[in-house]
């Protein structure tokens, strides 16, 4: 193989693709290498850690075809040092990298030893493929990822549920104390019913890559144990969590008896102030046309805050973990939100007022 490319182009591709190869130490050293693969007359750069696989292409002048794997970390460090065009020439397992007056010769490994890869093909007009605007998807993730559980014992909750039904894409996350459900209409109807859990780590890496690419349409394809995202020329494949997500619809309460409409910013800042005193539990007392937010912490002190609201039902007290309330309020930028309640130990629904059930958050109160 012999290619010639600019530092900028190579660096771009490397930063897009090298994450799986450099993220962790693996007992199979070839995992820490990047695969340069000629396919369909294009030079592809592939890296995998067996969980996540990323494929992207490089803009390069191809002088001689061939496949090789090169240690990712070393290649990145070398590329950083270069200041102009770079020549990469492989001779069996030896890789010569040249720029200016410098010549590196590092040991690569044969591409034949590289682990077998999942099917990286995606035809954009297939019937089981959905697509949506990149920014909409990013927004949906940001509205759910904060509620993902970090408890390793309940691994099915360590990810976001991605569900496609008819024309609706739904993302769900929960940590056992709160639940976020966000959904969006798709342009194209799919016949398949899909329910997969995408691991948190995958989501975080995906967000980074989505940010770097300019293309606007994101394609998503799934099968039983994999999910594939395609944006521009980059393909991102991840294994999914093997398990069944709890039946989330069952915990979304209906027939809630009390409804309050609140200004998001007022509600958020009152909660924030109270959380200075107590990080675990804040009391919300709904009186006629006013909401009293208070917190007490023995040995620290107390706070009381009063908001004017439209509320005429019976007086009512409930306590929440302020983190849960704040997480939700900070994930949106609407002006008004609606809060639906029942009793002081039943879950409530909190959602943006305008948004028609496209985004809801169910929160369990603290018992007092």
């Amino acid at each position, binding site marked *: 193989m012999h290619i010639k490319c600019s530092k900028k182009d190579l660096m771009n591709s490397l930063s897009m693709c090298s994450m799986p190869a450099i993220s962790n130490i693996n007992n199979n050293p070839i995992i820490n290498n990047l695969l340069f693969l000629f396919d369909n007359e294009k030079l592809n750069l592939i890296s995998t850690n067996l969980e996540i696989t990323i494929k992207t292409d490089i803009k390069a002048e191809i002088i001689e075809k061939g496949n090789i794997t090169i240690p990712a970390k070393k290649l990145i460090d070398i590329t950083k040092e270069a200041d102009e065009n770079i020549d990469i020439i492989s001779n069996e397992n030896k890789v010569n990298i040249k720029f200016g007056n410098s010549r590196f010769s590092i040991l690569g490994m044969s591409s034949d030893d590289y682990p077998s890869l999942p099917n990286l093909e995606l035809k954009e007009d297939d019937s089981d493929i959905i697509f949506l605007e990149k920014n909409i998807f990013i927004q949906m993730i940001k509205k759910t990822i904060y509620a993902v*559980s970090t408890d390793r014992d309940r691994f099915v909750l360590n990810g976001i549920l991605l569900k496609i039904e008819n024309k609706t894409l739904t993302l769900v996350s*929960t940590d*056992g*104390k709160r639940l976020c459900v966000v959904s969006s209409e798709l342009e194209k109807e799919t016949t398949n019913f899909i329910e997969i859990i995408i691991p948190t780590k995958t989501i975080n890496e995906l967000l980074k890559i989505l940010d770097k690419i300019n293309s606007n349409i994101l394609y998503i394809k799934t099968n039983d144990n994999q999910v594939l995202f395609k944006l521009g020329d980059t393909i991102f494949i991840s294994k999914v969590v093997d398990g069944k997500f709890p039946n989330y619809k069952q*915990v979304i309460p209906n027939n809630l008896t009390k409804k309050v409409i609140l200004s998001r910013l007022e509600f958020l800042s009152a909660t924030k102030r109270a959380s200075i005193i107590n990080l*675990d539990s804040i009391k919300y007392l709904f009186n006629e046309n006013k909401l009293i937010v208070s917190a007490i912490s*023995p040995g620290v002190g107390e706070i009381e805050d009063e908001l004017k609201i439209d509320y005429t039902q019976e007086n009512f007290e409930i306590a929440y973990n302020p983190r849960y309330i704040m997480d939700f309020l900070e994930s949106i930028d609407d002006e008004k939100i609606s809060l639906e309640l029942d009793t002081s*130990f039943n*879950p409530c629904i909190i959602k943006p007022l305008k948004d028609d059930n496209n985004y809801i958050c169910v929160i369990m109160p603290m*018992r007092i």
Partner: protein
Amino acid sequence: MSKIKLLNLDTIEKIAAGEVIDRPEACIKEMVENSIDAGAKNITIEIENMGLSSIKIIDDGIGLDKDDLFMATKLHATSKISKIEDLEKINTFGFRGEALASIARISNMEIRSRVLKNDFGYKLKIKAGNIDKDAEKQGMPFGTQIFIKDLFFNVPARKKFLRSKNVENSKIIDTIEKIAISYDEINFILKIDGKIKLNIFSKEGKLFRIKEIFGKELGNELLPFEFQNESFHIFGYTSTSEYRSSKKNNYYVFVNKRIINSKIINIAINNAYKESLVGAFCPITFLFLEMSGEYFDCNIHPRKLDVRFMNEAAIFSIVSETIKNTLRNNDIQNVIENTVKIAEERENNNQNIEEIDEKQKYITNKNNNKNLKLDIFSERNFKNYKTKIYFSNEYREKYLKSWQNLNAMFSNVDLKKEEKLKISETKIIETKNIKNEFLFEEKEKKEFLKVIGFFPEKYILAYNKSNDLILIDEHAADERINYEKLLDDFKNQKILSKGLLFPLEIEMPFSIMDKYKNLDIYKKVESFGYFLEPFGKNIIKINAVPNILDSGKEKEATLEILEIFSDNINFDKIPNVIIEKIMMISCKNSIKAKTILSKEEMENLIKKLFLTKNPYHCPHGRPTMISFSQKEMDKKFFRII
């Protein structure tokens, strides 16, 4: 012919014998206990070849008449009880009338016995249960002599399961030692294969016996403890927190002088040492319990090793608390000496102190708890401790209150179902007095701790009034302070509880679920932040758990709290999962080792440390401070020899 046949008498007797006599050690134990029941003052035991060839037991007890000699060898023949009701009042070892007869079935035995009024004794031979027709006259000193030969000769199965000679011999030695501790008025001589292994003759009390058997070194590590009320009397000796042994459950427990194994007492002792010993180390304890026979049952097993108490919860709490207090008092004494002197001085100034008390109370109120900010290390206060008596008084009140609570708690505990234990009127002899005295001193004593400086990188250097050098581990000290604060917070506050969106379900075995049928238990755990409900036949649904709990631990913690509340035994009623979590938080919140502290910070730390319940150990059991006495140092510099 039917498959089910009646066993012949010989087989039945051999099986029964196997139940009691499973090894030579058991045989010797039974015989020695018989001698003790007979009022012997000197008992000699001689064995050969682990007791298989020959066992001789020679005592100077009341002896047996000719007629009794014949009766003794029959199964279920006993002089100790005559009807089942007598069992409750039993104070002899034996009562089942099995031992001698059982041994006679599986050996060749010769019994010689002479009662005091006769000039001669009788000799009776029994061969594998066949008793000679007549007893011969025999000249001998009074008492009983039993010669057992060829033990297990007709029970080859028993013989096969014996362990090595060393193991069997050490079991025998161990048993005789235990009996000798319990019966400190009897002399014991044990000869194994012609050599004297034990010759126990001290008569000065149990501690001397223990020293005689286990060596003086251990004897000096032991602390006496005692607790008494109308129903029972507990006393004994237990090792200090400096004693380190890796032998687990090294506990010698005697109920009315009888050696027993009691799981509940073992747990109670372990519980007492929980905060005073680091991880793998174990204490040694000698515990003597005296109580009326109606409060316990020792007729569970033919060997009478197991005992069942009427009220395990009361026994548990009393043993655990008594030992815990003893340990703490010892720690106080160890670190800061001079207690007696100060106590005497205070005694003399008693009246003045009362006056000062009043004044100080006034000042205290006026200053509104600012008293804690007083510079307790200043020279003036250092000398004139009397002006600060109000500290101690405050402390004494607090302390007395806690004892009252303890008493009140015991008084609610039913020892016997109908009859309430009147422990509230208990004289907590000695323990209470000693303790009170120490605690009274405690507050003053810490004021005698003067900070010298900071020893890089982890220790505070200080000295007390008697010029002992004291090193305090800053991290351990801070950890203890934080731990108690958090624990108090947890106990005193309304416990926050977090609701679960997806209620968890625990499936229980039916046998265990039975324990949790009572709905009261679910009400009780609510105040600890658990909202549970039984759900179906064998499922418990968890709706909410304490906020402090890490997610993933819900099931474990729930099972633990249910266990605690159904057994009524744990003192603190806080599940271990939560205590561990509190320990972890307190460890993380504490100042790290290698933090450099200013003098004020060190003084403040010491002040706070001595306000805790157990200032001498961190929650994990490591000591927070160690001391070097002036004497020790003088010796090392050869100032004194």
